[in-house]
């Protein structure tokens, strides 16, 4: 029988070693991402391409120097990827074109992101009448056919490359806003938000510290997926003849010119096409990988 003398009070139990080390959301996600080989490959490709396109032009030939005597010539020692019909080095034009296309993609996406997330979060969080009005506005803008709208914009403002970013960004933010709003709506109802509200946290704090981290997943994913669709849009505008101004090139312009002469000068299509497709592949896989990695609900592997 255990005596109850005061000298022998029960000792506190020692705290057991934690079964797992606690990990933040981000390191968790990073670990999962690393396991997805396609996404990793994609990421490496994109980073390499970025470096090539932004640093490469310093080391390559000039992209606008013409050589009318030479005309279009297949890959050779002097021109590793061949030349186009005006005798310009294709490698240089490809690097420079990649720069333009990636810039268009990035900047348009950032514009779409900034406007879309703010708008969508505000709509979703406010709810009620504000939400309805804001989403009606999005619906109206959605119902405008993009093609006509962009053509009219480009014609009105001239073919300024900055306007190109703006026009595309101004269309992509709609989908982003919708996605963000949807996510905010579903997160808003979760218990931990109620808990936060009960605890008396202010609105701003709830939005920035609780809601936004939980919707970042789809947002990041969609961002990674917007860049390729912006690049495709830019290629479409080049197809229409409304792309960047010569002698600048973009991947879209290069591919369009290459597709026109694909039987005579195969290199004019193959190289830009390959880079374009690989970039899109990589960004898409990266986006998918990020979504898999960041999605809290599928984290229980």
């Amino acid at each position, binding site marked *: 029988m255990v005596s109850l003398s005061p000298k022998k009070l029960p000792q506190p139990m020692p705290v057991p070693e934690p079964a797992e080390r606690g990990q933040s959301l981000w390191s968790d996600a990073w670990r999962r991402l690393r*396991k*997805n*080989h*396609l996404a990793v490959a994609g990421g490496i490709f994109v980073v390499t391409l970025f470096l090539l396109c932004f640093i490469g032009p310093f080391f390559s030939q000039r992209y606008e120097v013409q050589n009318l005597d030479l005309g279009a010539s297949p890959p050779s020692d002097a021109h590793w990827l061949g030349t186009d019909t005006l005798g310009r080095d294709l490698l240089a034009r490809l690097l420079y074109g990649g720069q333009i296309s990636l810039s268009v993609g990035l900047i348009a996406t950032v514009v779409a992101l900034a406007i879309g997330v703010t708008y969508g979060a505000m709509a979703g969080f406010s709810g009620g009448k504000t939400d309805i009005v804001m989403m*009606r506005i999005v*619906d*109206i803008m*959605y*119902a*405008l*056919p993009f*093609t*006509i709208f962009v*053509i*009219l914009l480009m*014609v*009105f403002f001239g073919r300024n490359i900055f306007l190109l970013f703006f026009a595309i960004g101004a269309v992509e933010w709609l989908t982003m806003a919708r996605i963000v709003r949807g996510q905010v709506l579903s997160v808003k109802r979760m218990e931990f938000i109620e808990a936060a509200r009960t605890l008396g946290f202010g609105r701003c704090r709830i939005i920035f510290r609780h809601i936004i981290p939980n919707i970042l997943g789809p947002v990041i994913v969609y961002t990674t997926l917007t860049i*390729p669709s912006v690049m*495709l849009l830019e*290629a*479409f505008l080049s*197809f*229409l003849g409304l792309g960047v101004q010569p002698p600048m090139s973009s991947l*879209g312009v290069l*591919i*369009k010119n290459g*597709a026109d002469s*694909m*039987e005579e000068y195969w290199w004019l*299509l193959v190289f830009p*096409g390959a880079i*374009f*497709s*690989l970039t*899109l*592949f990589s960004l*898409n*896989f990266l986006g*998918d990988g990020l*979504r*898999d990695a960041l*999605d809290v*609900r*599928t984290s*229980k592997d």
Partner: protein
Amino acid sequence: MFRFIGRRFLQTIPVMLIIITGTFFMQRFVPGGPFTAEKAVTPEVLHNLEAYYHLNDPLWKQYMDYVWDLCPKRFHPLALVNGLDFKAAFGIDFRPSFKYPNRTVNEIIADKLPVSLELGGWSLLVALGLGLPLGILAAVKRNTWIDYLCSSFAMTGICIPNFVLGPLLVLAFAIHTGWFEASGWYSPIDRVLPCLTLGSFYAGYIARLTRGGMIEVLHQDFIRTARAKGASEARIIFHHALRAGLLPVVSFLGPAAAGILTGSFVIETIFQIPGLGREFVNSALNRDYTMVLGTVILYAGLIVTLNLVVDVVQVWLNPRLKFE
């Protein structure tokens, strides 16, 4: 549900009005007009042309006249059967096109819409037929080489621009092997190449969305319960998971269908298909004011309708959602 639909319908009217007004005025501020050509028309001719098209009236008057023409004035829905004649049926007059003065916008759209619908419809089927199986397979075999293979294959449609894929297909299957015609929309077999090209693009998106949706669903508790209860894998995938997994596909398909149904400019140009896609681009480039407005109204109407359909289908698929 019918109250929901009714309310949506009423909400559409101000939306359409805003769109029409915006487009109407936006067009007029773009440089160049329908009669701008390298050789200027003489002043007398220009005066006559402007009088014919009422371009001499003050802008607000032109706008009011146009909106009045668009208002429904009667109700004979049966007249729609005869070439979608909105003027005979509802008194809605879309006016003649600037580029084709003897044809009304109504007529031109009625001519081309069925073609675009057909092109879009078959392409959607191709997209679903390619995308759904690839997506499901990739989700079920997540992170294995099968997943990578399916995802890559599906991605090809997105990553090769269709103005490259189209000519490649034509070169391979029309010119070298002679299986198909290089262009045209005359016999049923002409549908194959265009729909393949257009469908492969959407197949990629559908595959990825299906994969994402299925992955999300497959990890939920009720799936685990079903497995524990001994349901077969096929039943789990197709009966339990698919319904919820298709949700993102459905919400994507709504607006995408509007895009695909109103034709694709690139496909129509490459394969010479008399669809609406080219009208969207050409009417803007030609400054065909009435045609632009006609196509915008059509597109907006389609989007609104399809959004409604999507919302209804979503509720049916996921009973937890409710009509707001």
